[in-house]
């Protein structure tokens, strides 16, 4: 008599995100070998990311993709979205208002900060620009009334501890200059000053890439090291004290740095890392955020070939840190809601790689698109579908030496109305997947017919589809992949069951 089918159940498949670094044989079933355009949803399931919609009604930026999106939070609490593209500064969302034209710009890699009623624009080898919130005027800082000293034309600017901090000029990669207190255009007199960190490097010299304020400290990110100063909060000239120099880990991209609440994420030469906050110990331990995708990430960063255009955003609403490699066309999404045991983040990959990202205080995530300012929202990319893909690790069903014969696949999906789903499976580490497709039914669903939080997301009731598909093939290990063209509904994989029949011992 034949044996009964033996189910191999993967509850919350891909819950650990991608893991392309470990051996597939020993890889836990929760890891995925492929998780494209996926996120870890609030229930810990792997799901398709949201889509994006253009915000401005008509194409702008001369049909080029903006490089900078910045939310200005004014003193009265009002906000303003500034977008830089096509060598211009625009204001607004649905309609873009030209505010400033950079006639002499040679790049648009601006770093924008808002500080004390002013917004400042800094870019290496470019005259800094000031936006006076009161008057609404834009001008060069050097032309602003009350300007003193010489404002450094740094590539990095940080508004923290009551002043502006600027670094990474063309001629000086080790000098951090700060303005007078509360006056971002006063660069001499008062408490303005500078510190040259050339002498603090412990392993040769380095170059400053970015600055960050964190835990009451001034973090100076260099390419291969991180210099942490304390005492920056009050009169740094007198109180700035070196606290720690982390050698061997640095930041290679200015805009990869994001404060994720308890950590600062940044892209280093060895992947995305976090500077942990341990208040009690007054230390800043380093965590390897991208540990499970390290080689792929490094490979993509290298392939991106331009660290200047790498952007990142911490979208607190969904709790992910998104690192965009525009040239490579890929983004790495690191879920920060719940880290893995090894403190790494569940990682997914997006094929969406905006040149500009901005998370606003109203929990919106703006991204740049060609000619548009877009918002990360919806279930399609401005009406277009995008391919969600999830591939399990190689599964041996607990008996790697026993031959398995694949019989049936049962997929429990949340959402996915009218979504075409492709199932792929393969055996013994092969890439020649067998495929079957199905399109999920379209019907109205409602969860108690009450919109959750009165928002259009998930306002409808969850649609649970259970899909059964016979599959074939045999081998010692097998792999199942689910691909879905997301364009009309959410798509979240709740459970995956694979039924097999065990055979002879190899």
């Amino acid at each position, binding site marked *: 008599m034949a044996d009964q089918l033996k189910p191999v159940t993967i509850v919350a498949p891909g819950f650990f995100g991608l893991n392309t670094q470990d051996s597939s044989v020993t890889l836990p079933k929760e890891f995925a070998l492929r998780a494209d355009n996926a996120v870890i949803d609030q229930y810990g399931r792997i799901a398709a990311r949201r889509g994006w919609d253009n915000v401005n009604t008509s194409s702008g930026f001369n049909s080029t993709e903006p490089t900078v999106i910045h939310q200005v939070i004014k003193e009265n609490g009002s906000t303003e979205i500034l977008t830089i593209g096509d060598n211009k500064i625009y204001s607004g969302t649905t309609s873009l208002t030209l505010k400033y034209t950079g006639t002499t710009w040679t790049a648009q890699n601006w770093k924008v900060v808002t500080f004390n009623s002013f917004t400042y624009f800094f870019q290496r080898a470019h005259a800094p620009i000031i936006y006076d919130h009161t008057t609404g005027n834009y001008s060069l800082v050097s032309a602003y009334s009350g300007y003193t000293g010489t404002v450094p034309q740094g590539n990095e600017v940080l508004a923290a501890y009551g002043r502006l901090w600027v670094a990474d000029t063309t001629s000086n990669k080790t000098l951090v200059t700060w303005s007078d207190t509360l006056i971002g255009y006063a660069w001499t007199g*008062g408490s*303005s*000053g*500078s510190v040259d*960190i050339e*002498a603090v490097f412990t392993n040769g010299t380095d170059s400053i890439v970015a600055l960050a304020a964190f835990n009451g400290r001034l973090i100076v990110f260099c390419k291969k090291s991180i210099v942490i100063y304390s005492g920056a909060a009050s009169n740094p*000239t*007198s109180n700035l004290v070196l606290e720690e*120099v982390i050698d061997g880990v640095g930041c290679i991209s200015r805009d990869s740095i994001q404060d994720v609440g308890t950590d600062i994420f940044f892209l280093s030469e060895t992947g995305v890392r976090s500077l942990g906050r341990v208040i009690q110990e007054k230390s800043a331990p380093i965590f390897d955020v991208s540990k499970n995708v390290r080689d792929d990430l490094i490979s993509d960063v290298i392939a991106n070939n331009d660290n200047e255009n790498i952007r990142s955003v911490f979208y607190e609403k969904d709790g992910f840190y998104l690192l965009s490699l525009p040239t490579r066309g890929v983004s790495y999404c690191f879920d920060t809601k719940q880290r893995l045991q090894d403190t790494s983040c569940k990682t997914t990959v997006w094929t969406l790689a905006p040149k500009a990202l901005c998370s606003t205080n109203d929990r919106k995530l703006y991204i740049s698109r060609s000619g548009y300012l877009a918002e990360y929202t919806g279930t399609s990319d401005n009406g277009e579908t995008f391919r969600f893909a999830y591939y399990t690790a190689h599964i041996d069903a607990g008996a790697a030496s026993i031959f398995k014969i694949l019989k049936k696949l049962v997929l429990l999906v949340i959402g996915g109305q009218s979504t075409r789903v492709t199932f792929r499976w393969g055996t013994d580490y092969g890439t020649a997947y067998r495929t079957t497709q199905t399109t999920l039914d379209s019907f109205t669903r409602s969860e108690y017919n009450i919109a959750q939080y009165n928002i259009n997301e998930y306002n409808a009731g969850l649609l649970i589809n259970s899909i059964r598909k016979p599959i074939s093939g045999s081998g010692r290990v097998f792999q199942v992949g689910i691909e879905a063209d997301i364009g009309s509904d959410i798509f979240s994989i709740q459970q995956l069951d694979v039924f097999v029949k065990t055979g002879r011992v190899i």
Partner: protein
Amino acid sequence: MADSARNAFDQATSSITNLYQSILQRSPDQNGLQFWVDSLSKGTATLDDVANAFKNSDEYIVSALKTGQQVTIPSVSDFINRNSNDPQAVQLAAKQYGLDLPAISKALNLSTTDTQNYFRDAGVPLGTMLTGTIQRTFGGPSNVRQLDKGEDLVTEQVIGAQDGKLLVQQYDAYGVPTSTRLATPNPSDAQGWLQALGVVGGAIGASNLLGNLGGAAAVSDAAFIASDAAQLAAQGIPESQIAQILEFSGVDAFIAADAANLAAQKLAPTQIEQLLNQSGDGLRLFDVPPTTPTPTTPEPPPTTPEPPPTTPPEVPPTVPPEVPPTVPPETPPVVPPATPPVVPPEVPPVVPPVTPPVTPPVIPGTDINSLFGNLGSTLLSGFKGIAGSLLSGLAGNNQANTIGQLINAGVNYQQAKEAADALLQQGQISQQQYNTLASNIQGQYNTLATQTGQQLGEFTPYGITTNLFGPSGQNIQNAAMQAAQQSFNQAGMTNVDQLSQDYYNKLAALSAPEQQRQRLATEERLRAQGRLGVSGSAYGGTSPELLAQEQAIAQQQLQRELQSRQAALGERGTLLSQGTAALQPAVQLGTTAQQAAQQQFASNLARQNLLTNLQTQGIQSAGVLQRQGLQDLLARQLQATAARSGANQQLTQGLLGGAGGSNALGGVVGSALGNLFNPNAAGNINSLGFGTGLGYGNQDIGLFI
């Protein structure tokens, strides 16, 4: 130039500059200063030589003469010749040395007429220069008469006419107007005019005497000389004595010699006069050669007139006393390139020979005795007796001896010289005697100065090294001065700035390691704190730590600078203190020497006061003696009156008796006695001089003994 050489040069320059200022009363000219400094540096001259050269320079002499000082002129004739462009200087020099017109003319290489014109054109009065000569001009208000009136030289000047008489202003010896008087002139005869003045009887006595002897007034100088010479020759007086008499009466020595020679040849007076005029000697008739000896010393007046000797006594040959050369031969001075006024002589400066204490030359009185003895025993004995009595009454001894005693007693040179001048002007001594006396006085004072210098040390007012302290003291002083000089030189060479810099460098070097350690520590601390590169506008573009450190370093540097400065000043002060301390022995020696000099000076002053008292006493005694002499004179006058009465009686008797009554000699003697014992003439014989002048017409040749 080494420092020592530079110091020597500076010292020599300073010393010579001081000499210029103190002697010549002016700043040195560049060439002169350079010449003397070179001379000093080469050792060819000492500061004494320089001082002597300055004192012997024409510049100094002229200046001294013009300020009324008595100076010693090495060679008056050469001086006059060199300074012919300065008539006033010539006049003063000639006046001081008693030169007469011929001598001045000779020195100037001019004729006497040209010399007179020379002075006239220059506006320099000439009359007062002619020592021994009374010059007068009738009727002129500015004519000066110098008369011998006792010890004082009283001058009278006709200042106008009043009531048909001459208004005569009288002056004392100092030129201060005293009183006026009216004199009745005798316009036909100088003698009468003088007699009218009532003051010249003595002065013209001999002239009257000789004029009476000649029986007629001469009409010219040559005529008078010829007449007198012929008369003397006729009296059998030898030629030499005739010449001596004439010369003694003021006739030029050459003229006197010529006249005596002609007279000795028994030539007639007219012939002698003619020959004299032909020889041109007439122009120098009244010159008084300065070398003419005047060996006359009046003898004490006899109580009674000695009878005239029947035969002339032998007149000893008149040999001028040897006068030691007071002036060494001058050699052409070494003139600096730019002819500095002060010409340094190459020969040693004029230093009068050291002579023993002046022994006043004994002026033989036998000359007058023999002279007047030859004139007649009665005349000469009375003449000699009166003169001797006066001289004896004046000083009790001859004047030269008196001066010698004064000099020996410490009377200063000026006083002695003034006394000699007074004697000369009073006619008590001749020019030659005066010169001899002056030489002796000078020699004695030189000797005295030498002795004093040896006792007190060579003192000069110019800081010249002296031997006030003796050889050992001098050595101590030299050593102290040398040590002090070295210290002062070192102190002078101490560059405080450089020394301060050196100290600072040393202090900085000492503190540099610690400073460097502190800097490194700060740097290390800042580096550890990551603050090494911190800079802030509020801290001068650096970190507060570095600013504070640099401020501390700067403060330390300032303290070091202050310390260095103080140390440098202290070091120089130490050198100066050492120099001052080294000077102490010299200062003490100098103080001791000064005290000794003061004591010596006080002693000398006491001596001089004593001498002054003695002099005063002497003068008082002289006055007493003078009064006694006058009393004696009156007595002798009475006796002479009685004798004249007797002689008149005898003459009357002789004339009446017809035996030898027309004897010429007797007539002469009678006339002479008549004049000699003329009450007016005797009354005008003053206490100092009894006029024995030989009068020659309008030109009086004063002979004062």
